[in-house]
């Protein structure tokens, strides 16, 4: 069976690593494209409640977020510990929600406005009072599609 021993004894040829950068670049581009950098810094601490009957949110560009929770540690000295609303990068009053929705709408194409969703990201410890106020304001602003942001999990 000398047929198979022809190449033996010469040692392994070095594997060419010339294509390694290409592979790494491919991965790099994948991650660059899929990365979504967090746009807003959260001033309120939000731990969303758990739920089982959840759906994935589609079209992230059409979602506006309302954060509700108690201010984070470093903000507590100036804002206290009671639950507050955060819109974009600042604390807000309930009354500012209509304005917020209006600006969000202006930024979008007119055709897309009916598909816009408002996601309420509220901490599980907040009381319904503030949520109800927010919902009433959203009704006034005619932003009727809402989503209660939750995590997947059982109680």
């Amino acid at each position, binding site marked *: 069976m000398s047929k198979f021993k022809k190449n033996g004894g010469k040692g392994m040829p070095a594997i060419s*690593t010339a294509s*390694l*950068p290409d592979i*790494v*670049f491919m*991965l*790099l581009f994948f*991650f*660059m494209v*899929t*990365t*979504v*950098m*967090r746009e807003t810094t959260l001033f309120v601490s939000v731990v*969303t*409640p758990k*739920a*089982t*009957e*959840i*759906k*994935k*949110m589609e079209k*992230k560009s059409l*979602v506006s977020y309302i954060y509700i929770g108690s201010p984070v540690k470093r903000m507590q000295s100036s804002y206290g510990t009671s639950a507050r609303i955060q819109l974009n990068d600042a604390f807000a009053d309930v009354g500012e929600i209509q304005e917020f929705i209006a600006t969000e709408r202006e930024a979008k194409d007119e055709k897309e406005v009916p598909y816009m*969703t408002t*996601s309420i990201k*509220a*901490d*599980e*410890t*907040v*009381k*319904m*009072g503030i*949520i*109800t106020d927010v*919902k*009433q304001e*959203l*009704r*006034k602003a*005619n*932003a*009727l*599609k*809402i*989503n*209660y*942001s*939750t*995590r*997947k999990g059982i*109680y």
Partner: protein
Amino acid sequence: MASKRRGLPEINAGSMADIAFLLLIFFLVTTTMDIDTGISRKLPPMPDEDQPEDDSQINARNIYVVLINSSNQLLVEGELMDISQLKEGAKKFIDNNGIREDLSENPEKAIISLQNDRGTSYKMYIRVQNELAAAYNELRNRSALNKFGERYIDLNKSEQKEIRKMFPQKISEAEPKNIGGNS
């Protein structure tokens, strides 16, 4: 220039992989792949001031009243209930089909009326919403399996619509009230 150039020397690309790796690791670390999930609901439009409120002609048996008070207790159809029983209770109510006198005539007419206090915790509210959604989802799944032999989420759009028509999810939330006295 007096010196004769022999063309540009080749740039050593050996370190390119290192640079690319560095960037790759940066993006790997900063990437958050979390997809937003949640319970979607549609709010009712604001009542028109010019229009008089139409006092509903809905039969009382078709309404399943769920109240949550400020200490997170449930009152369902006038009786104290634990959250663990809510799903079964709601399923019985929706899928009654006129058998029991006090429950709904059929799933299409069944309405769940949810009312909470300002002092109710958000966690409890979401739990209740979740249980009610679970009741509907289970009923939809069951009829989807019976009719098409597949689960509800695996059906195509028109089949889903058909099932949705059989079990429309009608959860009505009353205008907010403040009973518990908390803000």
